[in-house]
């Protein structure tokens, strides 16, 4: 067994196990963390397949950003697990049926007769083969329009998300920080230097009242 095979089987096993845990574990936060593990091990498998750009982008985008936000939301949810499990036995037959159908479809499309090293001989690449360049050239030439379209779609998505969450309330209802004004502020605006003449207390005559007060 070569070292590559050892690494491949290790990461493939971890990915499969983690994927299984995502759907079986009860706590949603733990499920999200198992999903992180599944992504990381999948990225490792991709890197083994000489797709290092895709593998690293998978970690950077999904693990580093999307799933953190996902966790962010899931951690703050107050989920009643008992309520979610309601009707489990009632829907079980339909669920089993649907999952069997989906599994059958996947098996027909990507079953073992369509895969394997016999059908797809891995192409040998030279040492200066760059996966990044292999992706970049067709992306910006052949598929340029689709790429731009995807970018516009994302922009529309951003605008929509901001428009949906933006709610400007009048200043009477909510206080807003005017940071520009805060940054522009100078010491003279907040601080007044006042010259106060020194007050010298006159020597008090020895009196008995004070001593009595102390008592």
């Amino acid at each position, binding site marked *: 067994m070569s070292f590559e095979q050892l690494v491949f089987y290790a990461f493939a096993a971890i990915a499969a196990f983690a994927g299984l845990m995502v759907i079986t574990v009860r706590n949603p936060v*733990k499920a999200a963390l198992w999903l*992180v593990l599944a992504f990381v091990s999948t990225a490792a498998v991709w890197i083994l397949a000489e797709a290092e*750009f895709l593998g690293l*982008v998978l970690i950077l985008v999904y*693990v*580093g950003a999307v799933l*953190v936000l996902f966790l962010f939301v899931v*951690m703050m949810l107050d989920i009643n697990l008992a309520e979610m499990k309601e009707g489990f036995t009632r829907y079980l037959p339909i669920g089993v049926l649907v999952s069997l159908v989906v599994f059958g479809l996947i098996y027909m499309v990507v079953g073992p007769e369509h895969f394997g090293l016999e059908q797809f001989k891995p192409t040998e690449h030279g040492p200066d083969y*760059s996966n990044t360049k292999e992706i970049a050239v067709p992306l910006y030439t052949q598929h340029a329009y689709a790429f731009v379209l995807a970018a516009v779609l994302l922009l529309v998505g951003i605008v929509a998300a901001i428009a949906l969450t933006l709610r400007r309330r009048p200043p009477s209802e909510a206080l807003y920080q005017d940071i520009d004004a805060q940054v522009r502020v100078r010491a003279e605006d907040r601080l007044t230097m006042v010259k106060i003449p020194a007050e010298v207390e006159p020597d008090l005559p020895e009196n008995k009242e004070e001593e009595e007060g102390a008592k």
Partner: protein
Amino acid sequence: MFTTLQQWLSGWMWDWLAVLITLLIQAVVVILPIMIAVAYLTYAERKVIAYMQVRMGPNRVGPYGLLQPIADAVKLMFKEVVLPSQSNVYLFLIAPILAIAPAIAVWAVVPFAPGWVVTDIDAGVLYVLAVASITVYGVVVSGWASNSKYAFLGGLRSSAQKISYEIAMGFALVTVLMVADTMNLTKIVEGQQGGIWHWYLIPLLPMFVVYFISGVAETNRAPFDIAEGESEIVAGFHVEYSGMAFAVFFLAEYAMMILISYMTSIMFLGGWLSPFEGIPLLETLFAWVPPFFWLAAKVAFLLFVFLWFRATFPRYRYDQLMRLGWKVFIPLTIVWVFVVMLMHYFKVGPWFN
């Protein structure tokens, strides 16, 4: 050297075992000096801040207090790791590992001198960015698993902060890639050859500032240490940790500081190249200096700036921090991408030809 070792080993044992042993030796060779550097960075931090505040700093353990970090490490190792009740024990103990594992794994692609690199991969910059982005899980998971409000708030703050500043950081790196035409860290340094005016610091000066400040925010250092925020949320995400579990978070933070300094030196300050290159008299005068020394000197200076920041600036308010990341740094980096594009088109200076 390591390839000959691997060949010799695979002569009399399994192939995969030979590779594994070689990889382990390589890992130890890189990790051990970094851990020693981390230990003495904590000492340097205490000394530097002490002198800035007109104090002496640690001076009891060993000459000039030089054995202080070792004493600290021994003390932390013998302390009890307290497991909070109602906490999620597995995640509570995995969180420090999640923090330190990426902080160490990144060093696999960082070159220290010509040829001194574990793996010289073409996607080096992307690898560093991707692996460094995993460190956020240490903070988030520790915040959630501690079952403490302070830790949870710290975790939430930190995750939002790290994601925000990662974007600015990524864009700053995009401009470096545009100038260097490669993602290979060794080639990025080699592209800056030919004297101090060839360094990417000059065409990318705003990006240097953005990258370094984002790096300070990424490592949760003052003035961006709202994840800890002693005055508001006690100590943030690691409030429930004690002993070695706490020390591991500490190690991860300092290892990331050193990494940010290395990346800044490699991408903007010419890496291991001498600053006197191309200057007639000084170049021959300093020709004997080993390349690693120059890189170490640049890294040491940047680490000093980290400590200087901490001693100088008050902590940012949360909304100010978000404003700086989203409304100042990200627009600035996007503008600079176009500036670099124009510089590329008009073949400005010694950087584009």
